[in-house]
Protein backbone atom coordinates (compact mmCIF):
# COMPACT_ATOMS: atom_id res chain seq x y z
CA UNK A 1 0.00 0.00 0.00
CA UNK A 2 1.38 3.35 -0.93
CA UNK A 3 1.67 6.02 1.75
CA UNK A 4 -0.93 8.83 1.64
CA UNK A 5 0.32 12.01 0.07
CA UNK A 6 0.08 14.71 2.71
CA UNK A 7 -1.62 18.03 2.13
CA UNK A 8 0.94 20.66 2.98
CA UNK A 9 0.15 23.98 4.53
CA UNK A 10 0.90 27.30 2.97
CA UNK A 11 2.42 29.54 5.62
CA UNK A 12 1.16 33.04 5.09
CA UNK A 13 1.03 36.33 6.95
CA UNK A 14 -1.68 37.17 9.51
CA UNK A 15 -3.06 40.67 8.99
CA UNK A 16 -6.42 42.02 10.11
CA UNK A 17 -7.66 38.52 10.94
CA UNK A 18 -6.93 37.24 7.45
CA UNK A 19 -4.09 35.18 6.03
CA UNK A 20 -2.76 37.02 2.99
CA UNK A 21 0.42 36.27 1.08
CA UNK A 22 3.00 38.99 1.14
CA UNK A 23 1.93 41.75 -1.23
CA UNK A 24 5.45 41.47 -2.64
CA UNK A 25 4.76 37.88 -3.64
CA UNK A 26 8.02 36.84 -2.01
CA UNK A 27 8.65 33.88 0.22
CA UNK A 28 11.63 32.21 1.82
CA UNK A 29 12.50 28.65 2.58
CA UNK A 30 12.51 27.35 6.10
CA UNK A 31 13.79 23.94 7.12
CA UNK A 32 11.34 21.98 9.19
CA UNK A 33 10.49 18.47 10.09
CA UNK A 34 8.69 17.89 6.82
CA UNK A 35 11.68 19.14 4.94
CA UNK A 36 11.54 22.62 3.56
CA UNK A 37 8.62 25.00 3.73
CA UNK A 38 8.02 28.25 1.94
CA UNK A 39 7.08 31.08 4.29
CA UNK A 40 5.80 34.50 3.32
CA UNK A 41 8.52 37.14 3.28
CA UNK A 42 6.84 40.32 4.46
CA UNK A 43 7.64 43.63 2.81
CA UNK A 44 7.47 47.19 4.08
CA UNK A 45 4.05 47.45 2.47
CA UNK A 46 2.91 44.48 4.50
CA UNK A 47 4.13 46.40 7.54
CA UNK A 48 2.07 49.36 6.43
CA UNK A 49 -1.02 47.18 5.92
CA UNK A 50 -0.54 45.51 9.27
CA UNK A 51 -0.27 48.88 11.05
CA UNK A 52 -3.48 49.98 9.34
CA UNK A 53 -5.22 46.82 10.52
CA UNK A 54 -3.83 47.20 14.02
CA UNK A 55 -4.89 50.84 14.20
CA UNK A 56 -8.37 50.00 13.00
CA UNK A 57 -8.70 47.40 15.72
CA UNK A 58 -7.63 49.67 18.61
CA UNK A 59 -10.96 51.34 19.21
CA UNK A 60 -12.94 48.13 19.45
CA UNK A 61 -10.37 46.11 21.38
CA UNK A 62 -9.50 48.80 23.90
CA UNK A 63 -13.21 49.49 24.30
CA UNK A 64 -14.00 45.85 25.06
CA UNK A 65 -14.55 45.24 28.74
CA UNK A 66 -11.58 43.90 30.64
CA UNK A 67 -13.70 40.88 31.57
CA UNK A 68 -14.31 40.14 27.91
CA UNK A 69 -10.65 40.53 26.97
CA UNK A 70 -9.77 38.09 29.71
CA UNK A 71 -12.33 35.62 28.38
CA UNK A 72 -10.84 35.87 24.92
CA UNK A 73 -7.28 35.37 26.13
CA UNK A 74 -8.44 32.36 28.06
CA UNK A 75 -10.10 31.11 24.91
CA UNK A 76 -6.71 31.38 23.17
CA UNK A 77 -5.29 29.12 25.87
CA UNK A 78 -8.11 26.63 25.27
CA UNK A 79 -7.50 26.60 21.54
CA UNK A 80 -3.77 26.24 22.04
CA UNK A 81 -4.31 23.33 24.37
CA UNK A 82 -6.30 21.63 21.63
CA UNK A 83 -3.48 22.07 19.16
CA UNK A 84 -0.73 21.04 21.50
CA UNK A 85 0.43 18.18 19.28
CA UNK A 86 0.57 20.36 16.23
CA UNK A 87 3.20 22.56 17.88
CA UNK A 88 5.09 19.55 19.11
CA UNK A 89 5.03 18.36 15.49
CA UNK A 90 6.71 21.61 14.50
CA UNK A 91 9.53 20.83 16.87
CA UNK A 92 8.39 22.91 19.84
CA UNK A 93 9.21 21.01 23.02
CA UNK A 94 6.06 19.80 24.77
CA UNK A 95 7.06 21.55 27.98
CA UNK A 96 7.36 24.85 26.10
CA UNK A 97 3.90 24.44 24.61
CA UNK A 98 2.52 23.81 28.08
CA UNK A 99 4.22 26.92 29.40
CA UNK A 100 2.93 28.95 26.48
CA UNK A 101 -0.61 27.77 27.24
CA UNK A 102 -0.16 28.62 30.91
CA UNK A 103 1.16 32.03 30.01
CA UNK A 104 -2.04 32.85 28.13
CA UNK A 105 -3.99 31.77 31.18
CA UNK A 106 -1.79 33.91 33.43
CA UNK A 107 -2.23 37.02 31.34
CA UNK A 108 -5.95 36.32 30.79
CA UNK A 109 -6.39 36.72 34.52
CA UNK A 110 -4.59 40.06 34.50
CA UNK A 111 -7.09 41.77 32.23
CA UNK A 112 -9.34 43.02 35.02
CA UNK A 113 -6.64 43.38 37.67
CA UNK A 114 -3.91 45.47 36.12
CA UNK A 115 -6.06 48.62 36.44
CA UNK A 116 -6.43 47.95 40.14
CA UNK A 117 -2.77 47.23 40.62
CA UNK A 118 -1.43 50.01 38.43
CA UNK A 119 -4.13 52.64 39.00
CA UNK A 120 -4.39 54.96 41.94
CA UNK A 121 -6.78 57.11 43.90
CA UNK A 122 -4.82 60.24 44.70
CA UNK A 123 -5.54 62.23 47.87
CA UNK A 124 -4.96 65.72 46.48
CA UNK A 125 -4.94 68.67 48.85
CA UNK A 126 -8.27 70.11 47.77
CA UNK A 127 -11.93 69.33 47.17
CA UNK A 128 -11.31 67.06 44.20
CA UNK A 129 -11.91 63.53 43.15
CA UNK A 130 -8.68 62.38 41.52
CA UNK A 131 -8.16 59.01 39.92
CA UNK A 132 -5.31 57.64 37.84
CA UNK A 133 -6.08 54.70 35.56
CA UNK A 134 -3.92 52.85 33.11
CA UNK A 135 -4.94 52.87 29.48
CA UNK A 136 -3.48 51.06 26.50
CA UNK A 137 -0.89 52.96 24.49
CA UNK A 138 -2.39 51.94 21.13
CA UNK A 139 -0.49 50.13 18.42
CA UNK A 140 2.62 48.32 19.60
CA UNK A 141 5.29 47.16 17.18
CA UNK A 142 7.00 44.03 18.43
CA UNK A 143 10.23 42.34 17.43
CA UNK A 144 9.61 38.85 18.76
CA UNK A 145 12.49 36.83 20.17
CA UNK A 146 13.77 33.94 18.07
CA UNK A 147 14.05 31.59 21.01
CA UNK A 148 12.00 30.04 22.47
CA UNK A 149 9.93 30.30 19.33
CA UNK A 150 6.46 29.78 20.80
CA UNK A 151 6.87 30.75 24.47
CA UNK A 152 8.91 33.81 23.54
CA UNK A 153 6.29 34.96 21.07
CA UNK A 154 3.40 34.39 23.46
CA UNK A 155 5.34 36.13 26.24
CA UNK A 156 5.64 39.33 24.23
CA UNK A 157 2.22 39.32 22.54
CA UNK A 158 -0.07 38.45 25.46
CA UNK A 159 1.03 41.24 27.85
CA UNK A 160 0.74 43.83 25.10
CA UNK A 161 -2.78 42.91 24.06
CA UNK A 162 -4.33 41.97 27.39
CA UNK A 163 -4.52 45.63 28.35
CA UNK A 164 -6.18 46.66 25.08
CA UNK A 165 -3.26 47.37 22.78
CA UNK A 166 -3.04 45.88 19.32
CA UNK A 167 0.25 44.56 17.95
CA UNK A 168 2.20 44.24 14.76
CA UNK A 169 4.71 41.48 15.36
CA UNK A 170 7.82 40.91 13.30
CA UNK A 171 8.40 37.22 13.80
CA UNK A 172 12.03 36.13 14.05
CA UNK A 173 13.32 35.00 10.70
CA UNK A 174 14.38 31.61 12.03
CA UNK A 175 11.14 30.71 13.78
CA UNK A 176 8.10 31.42 11.58
CA UNK A 177 6.21 28.14 11.66
CA UNK A 178 5.06 28.17 15.30
CA UNK A 179 4.11 31.82 14.79
CA UNK A 180 1.88 31.17 11.81
CA UNK A 181 0.36 28.21 13.58
CA UNK A 182 -0.27 30.43 16.60
CA UNK A 183 -2.01 32.83 14.24
CA UNK A 184 -4.38 30.01 13.34
CA UNK A 185 -5.07 29.55 17.03
CA UNK A 186 -5.73 33.27 17.43
CA UNK A 187 -8.00 33.30 14.40
CA UNK A 188 -10.23 30.71 16.03
CA UNK A 189 -10.30 32.28 19.50
CA UNK A 190 -12.82 35.12 19.16
CA UNK A 191 -9.92 37.56 19.02
CA UNK A 192 -11.07 40.41 16.76
CA UNK A 193 -9.18 40.70 13.51
CA UNK A 194 -6.31 43.18 13.63
CA UNK A 195 -5.58 42.87 17.35
CA UNK A 196 -2.62 40.64 16.57
CA UNK A 197 -0.86 40.88 13.23
CA UNK A 198 2.05 38.56 12.55
CA UNK A 199 4.58 39.20 9.80
CA UNK A 200 7.05 36.49 8.92
CA UNK A 201 10.20 37.31 7.02
CA UNK A 202 13.31 39.27 7.81
CA UNK A 203 12.92 41.88 10.57
CA UNK A 204 16.27 43.24 9.44
CA UNK A 205 14.47 44.45 6.32
CA UNK A 206 11.17 45.59 7.79
CA UNK A 207 11.86 46.67 11.37
CA UNK A 208 13.03 50.15 10.48
CA UNK A 209 9.70 50.79 8.74
CA UNK A 210 7.86 49.71 11.83
CA UNK A 211 10.12 51.72 14.15
CA UNK A 212 9.75 54.84 12.07
CA UNK A 213 6.01 54.51 11.43
CA UNK A 214 4.29 57.62 12.81
CA UNK A 215 1.07 55.75 13.61
CA UNK A 216 2.74 53.21 15.85
CA UNK A 217 2.77 54.19 19.52
CA UNK A 218 5.30 51.84 21.03
CA UNK A 219 8.09 49.47 20.13
CA UNK A 220 9.15 46.27 21.84
CA UNK A 221 12.75 45.51 20.85
CA UNK A 222 12.99 42.20 22.68
CA UNK A 223 13.93 40.36 19.51
CA UNK A 224 16.54 42.91 18.38
CA UNK A 225 19.60 41.06 19.57
CA UNK A 226 22.15 43.06 17.62
CA UNK A 227 22.88 46.16 19.76
CA UNK A 228 23.63 48.39 16.80
CA UNK A 229 20.42 47.39 15.09
CA UNK A 230 18.47 47.95 18.29
CA UNK A 231 20.01 51.41 18.71
CA UNK A 232 19.13 52.32 15.16
CA UNK A 233 15.53 51.27 15.75
CA UNK A 234 15.32 53.12 19.04
CA UNK A 235 16.53 56.27 17.28
CA UNK A 236 13.94 55.82 14.56
CA UNK A 237 11.28 55.35 17.23
CA UNK A 238 12.08 58.80 18.62
CA UNK A 239 10.47 60.36 15.55
CA UNK A 240 7.07 60.26 17.24
CA UNK A 241 8.36 59.50 20.71
CA UNK A 242 7.32 55.87 20.78
CA UNK A 243 7.47 54.13 24.10
CA UNK A 244 10.42 51.78 23.67
CA UNK A 245 11.03 48.56 25.55
CA UNK A 246 14.72 47.96 25.05
CA UNK A 247 16.18 44.51 24.38
CA UNK A 248 16.96 42.62 27.58
CA UNK A 249 20.43 43.30 28.98
CA UNK A 250 21.18 39.63 29.41
CA UNK A 251 19.72 36.18 28.88
CA UNK A 252 16.05 35.90 29.76
CA UNK A 253 14.55 33.09 31.78
CA UNK A 254 11.27 32.80 29.91
CA UNK A 255 9.97 30.31 32.41
CA UNK A 256 10.24 32.74 35.31
CA UNK A 257 7.35 34.77 36.68
CA UNK A 258 7.01 37.49 34.05
CA UNK A 259 5.97 40.24 36.47
CA UNK A 260 3.93 43.17 35.25
CA UNK A 261 6.67 45.11 33.50
CA UNK A 262 5.71 43.95 30.02
CA UNK A 263 2.18 45.20 30.58
CA UNK A 264 3.08 48.53 32.17
CA UNK A 265 5.61 49.25 29.42
CA UNK A 266 2.68 49.75 27.07
CA UNK A 267 0.29 51.52 29.36
CA UNK A 268 -0.38 55.21 29.68
CA UNK A 269 -1.66 56.70 32.91
CA UNK A 270 -4.66 58.97 32.65
CA UNK A 271 -5.47 61.09 35.66
CA UNK A 272 -8.95 62.59 35.91
CA UNK A 273 -9.82 65.42 38.26
CA UNK A 274 -13.28 66.55 39.27
CA UNK A 275 -14.43 68.97 41.94
CA UNK A 276 -16.50 67.68 44.83
CA UNK A 277 -19.34 70.02 45.59
CA UNK A 278 -23.08 70.33 45.93
Amino acid at each position, binding site marked *: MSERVAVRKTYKLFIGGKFPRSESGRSYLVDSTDGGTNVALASRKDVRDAVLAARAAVKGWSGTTAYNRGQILYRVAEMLEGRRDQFVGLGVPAAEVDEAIDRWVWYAGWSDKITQVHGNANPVA*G*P*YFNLSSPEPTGVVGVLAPAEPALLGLVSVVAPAIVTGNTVVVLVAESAPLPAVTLAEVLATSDLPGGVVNLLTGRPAETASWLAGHMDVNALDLTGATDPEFATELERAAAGNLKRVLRPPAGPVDWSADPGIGRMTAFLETKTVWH*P*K*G*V
Partner: protein
Amino acid sequence: MLARMTATTASARSDLSEVGRSEATLRSFLHGLPGVDQVGAEQRAAMLGTRSIKTTAKAWAIDLAIRMVDLTTLEGADTPGKVRGLAAKALRPDPADPSCPAVGALCVYPTMVPVAAPVLAGSGVHLASVATAFPSGQAPLEIRLADTRAAVAAGADEIDMVINRGAFLSGRYGEVFDEIVAVKAACGDAHLKVILETGELVTYDNVRRASWLAMLAGADFVKTSTGKVPVAATLPVTLVMLEAVRDFRDATGRVVGVKPAGGIRTTKDAIKYLVLVNETAGEEWLHPDRFRFGASSLLNDLLMQRTKLTTGVYSGPDYFTLD
Protein backbone atom coordinates in the same frame (compact mmCIF):
# COMPACT_ATOMS: atom_id res chain seq x y z
CA MET B 1 -33.96 76.50 26.49
CA LEU B 2 -35.55 79.78 27.34
CA ALA B 3 -33.26 80.43 30.26
CA ARG B 4 -30.26 79.83 28.08
CA MET B 5 -31.36 82.42 25.63
CA THR B 6 -32.21 84.99 28.23
CA ALA B 7 -28.99 84.52 30.13
CA THR B 8 -26.91 85.58 27.19
CA THR B 9 -25.21 88.90 27.04
CA ALA B 10 -26.36 89.35 23.50
CA SER B 11 -27.76 92.76 22.82
CA ALA B 12 -31.16 91.37 21.98
CA ARG B 13 -33.36 91.87 25.03
CA SER B 14 -35.87 89.24 25.94
CA ASP B 15 -39.40 89.66 27.13
CA LEU B 16 -39.56 87.64 30.32
CA SER B 17 -42.97 88.85 31.39
CA GLU B 18 -44.53 85.50 30.53
CA VAL B 19 -42.15 83.42 32.62
CA GLY B 20 -44.15 83.91 35.80
CA ARG B 21 -47.38 82.97 34.06
CA SER B 22 -47.51 79.48 35.49
CA GLU B 23 -45.75 77.10 37.78
CA ALA B 24 -44.64 75.16 34.69
CA THR B 25 -43.10 78.10 32.85
CA LEU B 26 -41.29 79.23 35.99
CA ARG B 27 -39.99 75.79 36.69
CA SER B 28 -38.68 75.22 33.20
CA PHE B 29 -37.06 78.64 33.20
CA LEU B 30 -35.37 78.32 36.58
CA HIS B 31 -34.24 74.76 35.97
CA GLY B 32 -32.82 75.83 32.61
CA LEU B 33 -30.42 78.32 34.17
CA PRO B 34 -26.79 77.24 33.98
CA GLY B 35 -25.61 75.40 37.08
CA VAL B 36 -23.02 76.69 39.49
CA ASP B 37 -20.01 74.59 40.32
CA GLN B 38 -19.45 75.05 44.02
CA VAL B 39 -15.71 74.55 44.02
CA GLY B 40 -15.16 76.81 41.04
CA ALA B 41 -17.35 79.59 42.42
CA GLU B 42 -15.67 79.45 45.80
CA GLN B 43 -12.23 79.53 44.23
CA ARG B 44 -13.10 82.55 42.16
CA ALA B 45 -14.39 84.37 45.23
CA ALA B 46 -11.32 83.36 47.22
CA MET B 47 -8.99 84.56 44.49
CA LEU B 48 -10.70 87.94 44.38
CA GLY B 49 -10.32 88.01 48.16
CA THR B 50 -6.55 88.15 47.66
CA ARG B 51 -6.68 91.50 45.87
CA SER B 52 -4.58 94.02 47.72
CA ILE B 53 -6.34 97.36 48.03
CA LYS B 54 -4.04 100.03 49.37
CA THR B 55 -3.64 103.78 49.88
CA THR B 56 -5.82 105.87 47.54
CA ALA B 57 -7.84 102.87 46.42
CA LYS B 58 -8.50 101.94 50.03
CA ALA B 59 -9.60 105.47 50.94
CA TRP B 60 -11.98 105.52 47.99
CA ALA B 61 -13.35 102.09 48.84
CA ILE B 62 -13.90 102.98 52.52
CA ASP B 63 -15.96 106.04 51.70
CA LEU B 64 -17.98 104.09 49.15
CA ALA B 65 -18.53 101.30 51.66
CA ILE B 66 -19.78 103.78 54.28
CA ARG B 67 -22.27 105.13 51.73
CA MET B 68 -23.40 101.56 51.10
CA VAL B 69 -24.05 100.59 54.69
CA ASP B 70 -27.61 99.76 55.67
CA LEU B 71 -27.02 100.54 59.30
CA THR B 72 -29.11 97.90 60.96
CA THR B 73 -30.66 97.13 64.30
CA LEU B 74 -33.09 94.23 64.40
CA GLU B 75 -33.32 93.23 68.02
CA GLY B 76 -36.25 92.41 70.23
CA ALA B 77 -34.69 94.87 72.68
CA ASP B 78 -34.76 97.80 70.24
CA THR B 79 -36.22 100.93 71.78
CA PRO B 80 -37.01 104.38 70.37
CA GLY B 81 -33.95 105.72 72.15
CA LYS B 82 -31.66 103.22 70.57
CA VAL B 83 -33.14 103.79 67.10
CA ARG B 84 -32.91 107.56 67.40
CA GLY B 85 -29.26 107.25 68.34
CA LEU B 86 -28.55 105.01 65.41
CA ALA B 87 -30.41 107.31 63.04
CA ALA B 88 -28.23 110.18 64.18
CA LYS B 89 -25.20 108.07 63.54
CA ALA B 90 -26.49 107.17 60.07
CA LEU B 91 -26.54 110.85 59.21
CA ARG B 92 -23.16 111.71 60.69
CA PRO B 93 -21.15 108.55 61.25
CA ASP B 94 -18.05 110.43 62.35
CA PRO B 95 -19.00 113.62 64.15
CA ALA B 96 -15.33 114.54 64.34
CA ASP B 97 -14.95 114.57 60.57
CA PRO B 98 -17.52 116.42 58.47
CA SER B 99 -15.98 114.96 55.28
CA CYS B 100 -17.21 111.53 56.31
CA PRO B 101 -20.23 110.57 54.19
CA ALA B 102 -23.59 109.44 55.54
CA VAL B 103 -24.59 105.80 55.29
CA GLY B 104 -26.96 104.44 52.65
CA ALA B 105 -29.89 103.65 54.87
CA LEU B 106 -31.06 102.85 58.34
CA CYS B 107 -32.69 99.44 58.64
CA VAL B 108 -35.18 98.76 61.46
CA TYR B 109 -38.28 96.78 62.40
CA PRO B 110 -41.64 98.26 61.26
CA THR B 111 -42.51 99.42 64.76
CA MET B 112 -39.42 101.58 64.80
CA VAL B 113 -40.09 103.25 61.45
CA PRO B 114 -42.17 106.07 62.96
CA VAL B 115 -39.30 106.80 65.35
CA ALA B 116 -36.64 106.97 62.67
CA ALA B 117 -38.60 108.67 59.91
CA PRO B 118 -38.54 112.20 61.31
CA VAL B 119 -34.81 112.02 62.04
CA LEU B 120 -33.94 110.97 58.52
CA ALA B 121 -36.52 112.99 56.62
CA GLY B 122 -34.99 115.00 53.80
CA SER B 123 -31.46 113.77 54.56
CA GLY B 124 -31.04 111.46 51.57
CA VAL B 125 -30.42 108.58 53.95
CA HIS B 126 -32.99 105.94 53.15
CA LEU B 127 -35.19 104.31 55.73
CA ALA B 128 -35.48 100.58 55.29
CA SER B 129 -37.78 98.33 57.20
CA VAL B 130 -37.84 94.58 57.36
CA ALA B 131 -41.40 93.40 56.89
CA THR B 132 -43.37 90.28 55.96
CA ALA B 133 -43.05 88.64 59.38
CA PHE B 134 -39.28 88.93 59.38
CA PRO B 135 -37.19 86.82 59.78
CA SER B 136 -39.11 83.56 59.26
CA GLY B 137 -41.89 84.86 57.04
CA GLN B 138 -44.08 82.27 58.68
CA ALA B 139 -47.28 84.30 58.89
CA PRO B 140 -50.36 84.34 56.66
CA LEU B 141 -49.80 86.35 53.49
CA GLU B 142 -52.41 88.94 54.46
CA ILE B 143 -50.54 89.66 57.66
CA ARG B 144 -47.24 89.95 55.80
CA LEU B 145 -48.82 92.36 53.32
CA ALA B 146 -50.30 94.42 56.13
CA ASP B 147 -46.89 94.48 57.80
CA THR B 148 -45.46 95.88 54.57
CA ARG B 149 -48.16 98.48 54.05
CA ALA B 150 -47.81 99.67 57.64
CA ALA B 151 -44.06 100.14 57.29
CA VAL B 152 -44.44 102.08 54.05
CA ALA B 153 -47.23 104.18 55.49
CA ALA B 154 -45.02 105.04 58.48
CA GLY B 155 -42.32 106.38 56.18
CA ALA B 156 -40.12 103.48 55.08
CA ASP B 157 -38.94 103.93 51.48
CA GLU B 158 -37.27 100.54 51.33
CA ILE B 159 -38.78 97.21 52.34
CA ASP B 160 -36.68 94.14 53.09
CA MET B 161 -38.93 91.11 52.69
CA VAL B 162 -38.17 87.44 53.22
CA ILE B 163 -39.10 84.80 50.68
CA ASN B 164 -41.04 81.72 51.55
CA ARG B 165 -38.09 79.31 51.77
CA GLY B 166 -40.32 76.36 52.56
CA ALA B 167 -42.24 76.88 49.34
CA PHE B 168 -39.04 77.41 47.37
CA LEU B 169 -37.33 74.31 48.70
CA SER B 170 -40.37 72.17 47.95
CA GLY B 171 -40.42 73.49 44.41
CA ARG B 172 -43.54 75.66 44.70
CA TYR B 173 -41.93 78.45 42.73
CA GLY B 174 -45.25 79.95 41.65
CA GLU B 175 -46.24 80.51 45.25
CA VAL B 176 -42.99 82.29 46.04
CA PHE B 177 -43.31 84.35 42.88
CA ASP B 178 -46.89 85.40 43.58
CA GLU B 179 -46.04 86.42 47.11
CA ILE B 180 -43.18 88.62 45.94
CA VAL B 181 -45.47 90.20 43.36
CA ALA B 182 -48.04 90.89 46.06
CA VAL B 183 -45.49 92.42 48.43
CA LYS B 184 -44.10 94.52 45.61
CA ALA B 185 -47.62 95.84 44.99
CA ALA B 186 -47.99 96.57 48.70
CA CYS B 187 -44.73 98.52 48.61
CA GLY B 188 -46.06 101.13 46.26
CA ASP B 189 -43.15 103.46 45.56
CA ALA B 190 -40.90 101.92 48.17
CA HIS B 191 -38.01 99.86 46.90
CA LEU B 192 -38.25 96.15 47.49
CA LYS B 193 -35.29 94.11 48.70
CA VAL B 194 -35.95 90.40 48.57
CA ILE B 195 -34.11 88.37 51.19
CA LEU B 196 -33.33 84.90 49.87
CA GLU B 197 -31.93 83.59 53.15
CA THR B 198 -29.18 81.84 51.24
CA GLY B 199 -28.01 79.98 54.34
CA GLU B 200 -31.26 78.02 54.15
CA LEU B 201 -31.18 77.55 50.38
CA VAL B 202 -27.78 75.88 50.83
CA THR B 203 -26.73 75.33 47.21
CA TYR B 204 -25.51 77.93 44.77
CA ASP B 205 -27.86 76.51 42.16
CA ASN B 206 -30.71 77.45 44.49
CA VAL B 207 -29.23 80.89 45.08
CA ARG B 208 -29.08 81.53 41.36
CA ARG B 209 -32.63 80.28 40.82
CA ALA B 210 -34.01 82.24 43.75
CA SER B 211 -32.25 85.38 42.53
CA TRP B 212 -33.84 85.05 39.11
CA LEU B 213 -37.20 84.24 40.63
CA ALA B 214 -37.08 87.38 42.77
CA MET B 215 -35.95 89.56 39.90
CA LEU B 216 -38.65 88.20 37.60
CA ALA B 217 -41.22 88.96 40.30
CA GLY B 218 -40.09 92.58 40.50
CA ALA B 219 -37.39 92.79 43.18
CA ASP B 220 -35.33 95.99 43.18
CA PHE B 221 -32.63 94.31 45.25
CA VAL B 222 -31.76 90.74 46.07
CA LYS B 223 -30.40 90.31 49.57
CA THR B 224 -28.56 87.34 51.00
CA SER B 225 -29.72 86.94 54.55
CA THR B 226 -31.75 87.99 57.53
CA GLY B 227 -28.76 87.68 59.81
CA LYS B 228 -30.90 85.45 62.00
CA VAL B 229 -29.68 82.04 60.79
CA PRO B 230 -26.21 80.63 61.35
CA VAL B 231 -24.95 81.12 57.78
CA ALA B 232 -25.30 84.67 56.51
CA ALA B 233 -23.60 86.49 53.64
CA THR B 234 -20.53 84.91 52.09
CA LEU B 235 -18.34 86.04 49.22
CA PRO B 236 -19.26 83.16 46.90
CA VAL B 237 -23.00 83.55 47.53
CA THR B 238 -22.67 87.22 46.71
CA LEU B 239 -20.63 86.31 43.63
CA VAL B 240 -23.45 84.11 42.36
CA MET B 241 -26.02 86.83 43.02
CA LEU B 242 -23.87 89.43 41.26
CA GLU B 243 -23.65 87.12 38.25
CA ALA B 244 -27.43 86.81 38.33
CA VAL B 245 -28.10 90.56 38.39
CA ARG B 246 -25.51 91.06 35.66
CA ASP B 247 -27.11 88.43 33.45
CA PHE B 248 -30.61 89.76 34.25
CA ARG B 249 -29.53 93.24 33.20
CA ASP B 250 -28.09 91.85 29.97
CA ALA B 251 -31.31 89.95 29.33
CA THR B 252 -33.86 92.59 30.28
CA GLY B 253 -32.09 95.91 30.61
CA ARG B 254 -33.32 96.28 34.19
CA VAL B 255 -30.71 96.76 36.88
CA VAL B 256 -31.28 95.00 40.19
CA GLY B 257 -29.14 95.67 43.25
CA VAL B 258 -27.43 93.24 45.60
CA LYS B 259 -27.22 93.37 49.39
CA PRO B 260 -25.07 90.96 51.35
CA ALA B 261 -26.14 91.03 54.98
CA GLY B 262 -24.89 89.46 58.15
CA GLY B 263 -21.36 88.64 59.21
CA ILE B 264 -19.62 91.49 57.41
CA ARG B 265 -17.75 93.16 60.23
CA THR B 266 -14.43 94.49 59.01
CA THR B 267 -13.18 96.95 56.45
CA LYS B 268 -11.14 94.16 54.94
CA ASP B 269 -14.32 92.12 54.43
CA ALA B 270 -16.18 95.06 52.93
CA ILE B 271 -13.38 95.80 50.49
CA LYS B 272 -13.38 92.17 49.36
CA TYR B 273 -17.05 92.57 48.52
CA LEU B 274 -16.36 95.75 46.57
CA VAL B 275 -13.65 93.96 44.59
CA LEU B 276 -16.16 91.22 43.90
CA VAL B 277 -18.67 93.78 42.64
CA ASN B 278 -16.05 95.52 40.54
CA GLU B 279 -14.82 92.37 38.83
CA THR B 280 -18.14 90.55 38.49
CA ALA B 281 -21.05 92.91 37.82
CA GLY B 282 -18.82 95.88 37.11
CA GLU B 283 -18.62 99.55 37.81
CA GLU B 284 -22.33 100.10 37.28
CA TRP B 285 -22.98 98.36 40.60
CA LEU B 286 -20.40 100.35 42.58
CA HIS B 287 -23.07 102.70 43.83
CA PRO B 288 -25.30 102.72 46.94
CA ASP B 289 -28.35 102.43 44.68
CA ARG B 290 -27.03 99.07 43.45
CA PHE B 291 -25.06 97.61 46.30
CA ARG B 292 -25.54 97.73 50.06
CA PHE B 293 -24.06 96.13 53.11
CA GLY B 294 -26.53 94.94 55.73
CA ALA B 295 -24.42 95.47 58.82
CA SER B 296 -24.17 97.01 62.25
CA SER B 297 -20.63 96.74 63.60
CA LEU B 298 -19.04 97.18 60.15
CA LEU B 299 -19.51 100.93 60.22
CA ASN B 300 -17.25 101.50 63.20
CA ASP B 301 -14.46 99.49 61.66
CA LEU B 302 -14.79 101.47 58.44
CA LEU B 303 -14.56 104.65 60.48
CA MET B 304 -11.50 103.44 62.35
CA GLN B 305 -9.72 102.53 59.13
CA ARG B 306 -10.75 105.82 57.59
CA THR B 307 -9.24 107.70 60.49
CA LYS B 308 -6.07 105.65 60.23
CA LEU B 309 -5.71 106.68 56.60
CA THR B 310 -6.25 110.37 57.38
CA THR B 311 -4.19 110.58 60.55
CA GLY B 312 -1.56 107.94 59.85
CA VAL B 313 -1.98 106.33 63.27
CA TYR B 314 -4.07 103.37 64.33
CA SER B 315 -7.27 104.32 66.09
CA GLY B 316 -9.22 102.53 68.79
CA PRO B 317 -12.88 101.69 69.43
CA ASP B 318 -13.27 104.30 72.15
CA TYR B 319 -12.92 107.05 69.59
CA PHE B 320 -16.14 106.03 67.82
CA THR B 321 -19.67 106.02 69.09
CA LEU B 322 -21.31 102.83 70.19
CA ASP B 323 -24.88 103.01 68.96
